[in-house]
């Protein structure tokens, strides 16, 4: 049903293309030729964007790549997640966003949109096994789920009073479908092509209503930025439509999505391991860098905390209270999205991630160092000083050797915490282990099994590292 509707829509685009072509003549193509643009997109919004064998693919991806090729520019795709992509666009971290994004009046206030490239609509789906819910009227007293900030959420909210149900918002399609399958919500409101694709991939849902007339998807740039990119997109889109390539792309993804062949658990394991290992590598890299910087910060501010100078003590206290007093997630958002908006200087995701984790862990390290130093009997310092040894020598030879011994278990603990905290960086699109896991289950809808593999990898690595640390601790802190 959805597929037929889509085909009709595809035809409807031909009318739009003429207008786009004429508009583009005022903007010469050469303005973008040779340029490289960073394009943000959703992590997974199949069939518009999703990963197949680790590569980003989908309608949006084919469109933007074909348009880039025909208009002579290069694109670098960043798979950030929908919310994150929009924030990245506002903070000029990316030049454009193509993420199955509906063109709305609200968004037009902050973004400039291309000509619409797809007409969408919202549809409702329930779990395969559910025979109770066949229409909106059956939703009375129930909870439904929709994607945060999406058309589906707007639509669900518009009818929730009439049909007396509650709307809950989640960040991505895969999570929403799991929510419905787990029975936390009875139904999901999602864009129909996405829903249709998921159902074809055996995601365990079925659609029960006709699609609602919805808005159109557009490619967006930050308000007033990169006008040549929008113009080139419009020109390229018009060319794709007139050459028939546009229809070919739509057909490729919507006509007959291949049902996913359900491989066994070990099939999933072997398929997902390469991507997960890549993620694990980044997890360890971010952990290693962060813990090293945190150690330096911790020792520095730890000494500030026990120093006799009120200024230094105050400085260290302010640092610690800021980073211990705010959630890590807020810090990550701030460094990746907030800071570039304030400074106008964009920041790459690894830098932002390491900055967040090291400043955060550094605050805890400061307290570990302070606690370690202060737990050494003051009589030790007095004995050292009374012998005529200076402050630094007394610290180095008398206090620190004893303090380090006391601190080591806390250091190991902080190390493990930081390793686990890297998973939070998935929200800013840092491609570590958890992020890779999300990518995989977003495409295959096998959330439980994928998360089990991800958790097992964390478990193995953390326990190996803990054993190693304890061994080193025993060896050096006898």
């Amino acid at each position, binding site marked *: 049903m959805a597929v037929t509707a889509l085909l009709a829509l595809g035809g409807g685009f031909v009318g739009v293309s003429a207008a786009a072509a004429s508009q583009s003549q005022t903007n010469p193509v050469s303005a973008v030729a040779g340029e490289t643009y960073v394009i943000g997109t959703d992590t997974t919004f199949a069939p518009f964007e999703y990963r197949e064998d680790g590569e980003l693919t989908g309608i949006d991806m084919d469109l933007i790549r074909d348009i880039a090729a025909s208009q002579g520019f290069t694109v670098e795709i960043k798979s950030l997640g929908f919310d994150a992509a929009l924030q990245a666009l506002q903070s000029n971290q990316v030049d454009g966003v193509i993420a199955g994004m509906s063109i709305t009046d609200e968004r037009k206030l902050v973004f400039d949109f291309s000509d619409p490239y797809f007409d969408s609509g919202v549809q409702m789906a329930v779990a395969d096994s559910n025979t109770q819910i066949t229409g909106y009227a059956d939703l009375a007293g129930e909870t439904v789920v929709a994607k945060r900030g999406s058309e589906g959420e707007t639509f669900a909210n518009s009818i929730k009073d009439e049909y007396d149900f509650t709307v809950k918002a989640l960040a991505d399609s895969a999570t929403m479908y799991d929510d419905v399958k787990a029975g936390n919500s009875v139904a999901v409101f999602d864009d129909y092509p996405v829903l249709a694709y998921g159902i074809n991939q055996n995601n365990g849902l079925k659609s029960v209503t006709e699609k609602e007339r919805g808005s159109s998807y557009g490619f967006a740039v930050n308000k007033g930025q990169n006008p040549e990119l929008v113009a080139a997109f419009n020109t390229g889109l018009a060319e794709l439509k007139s050459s028939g390539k546009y229809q070919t792309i739509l057909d490729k993804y919507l006509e007959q999505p291949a049902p996913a062949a359900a491989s066994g658990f070990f099939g999933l394991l072997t398929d997902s391991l390469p991507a997960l290992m890549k993620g694990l590598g980044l997890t360890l890299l971010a952990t290693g860098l962060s813990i090293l910087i945190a150690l330096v910060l911790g020792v520095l501010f730890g000494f500030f905390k026990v120093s006799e100078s009120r200024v230094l003590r105050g400085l260290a206290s302010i640092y610690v209270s800021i980073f211990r007093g705010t959630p890590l997630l807020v810090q990550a958002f701030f460094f990746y999205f907030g800071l570039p908006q304030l400074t106008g200087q964009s920041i790459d995701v690894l830098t932002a991630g390491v900055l967040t984790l090291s400043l955060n862990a550094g605050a805890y390290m400061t307290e570990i160092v302070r606690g370690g130093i202060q737990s050494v*009997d003051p009589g030790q310092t007095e*004995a050292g000083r*009374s*012998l*005529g*040894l200076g402050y630094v*020598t007394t610290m180095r030879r*008398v206090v620190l*050797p*004893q303090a380090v011994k006391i601190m080591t278990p806390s250091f190991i603990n902080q190390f493990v915490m930081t390793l686990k905290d890297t998973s939070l960086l998935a929200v800013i699109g840092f491609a570590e282990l958890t992020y890779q896991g999300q990518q995989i289950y977003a495409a295959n809808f096998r959330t439980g099994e994928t998360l089990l593999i991800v958790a097992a990898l964390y478990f193995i690595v953390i326990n190996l590292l803990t054993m190693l640390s304890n061994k080193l601790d025993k060896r050096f802190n006898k």
Partner: protein
Amino acid sequence: MSKISVSGLRKSFGANEVLKGLDVEITEGEVVCVIGPSGSGKSTFLRCLNKLDELSAGAVIVDGFDLSDKTVNLNEVRQHIGMVFQHFNLFPHMTVLQNIMLAPLELKKESAANARATALKLLDRVGLADKANARPAQLSGGQKQRVAIARSLAVNPDIMLFDEATSALDPEMVGEVLQVIRDLAAEGMTMVVVTHEMGFAREVADRVIFMADGVIVEEGTPAELFGNPQQERTQDFLSKVL
């Protein structure tokens, strides 16, 4: 000339004034014992002599160095003043020998070989030559305190301060530590000894100072102070401890 000259010394911790104006002159080779009830300020007085506690007011001049002068190199002055603590404060992560050698080596006073020879000689002097490679945790209280004395002597001080050096010891170990202090006195070391051992004070002291409530109530030779105390406060204290 005075080895130690204290004038108008006051010390407060917050609003609590612990020393309320002390004047003391100590000459070279003199052994001064400070006695008095708990909280009288004896230990604080001692800790002001090497500035482990900051002075609130007044002057302390040691070996010609004015400790109230901020430009005086305290680390330099402290090498002239050994201090022995009630709780020993040995460095637990080092052997006995390393404890004794730490300061001479860090202060580059001696070569490693010389420092080692000196340390062994000092250990022999306090009767612990066989404990050179032991860890502090393996020693008895009396042995720890004797190591602590050897450690203070390693930087070759000409003044020794003892802060209730036998108070944390089991009674049967007090004697061995007092013997070491007695020997030092016999060698002519200038010493200030805060103690609760009245018998010891009477025996080794050239002069006994009785402190109470942050002031010096009375001072004199052991014979004068113990035999014929003038102040009611002193009489009262002595009647309780003797």
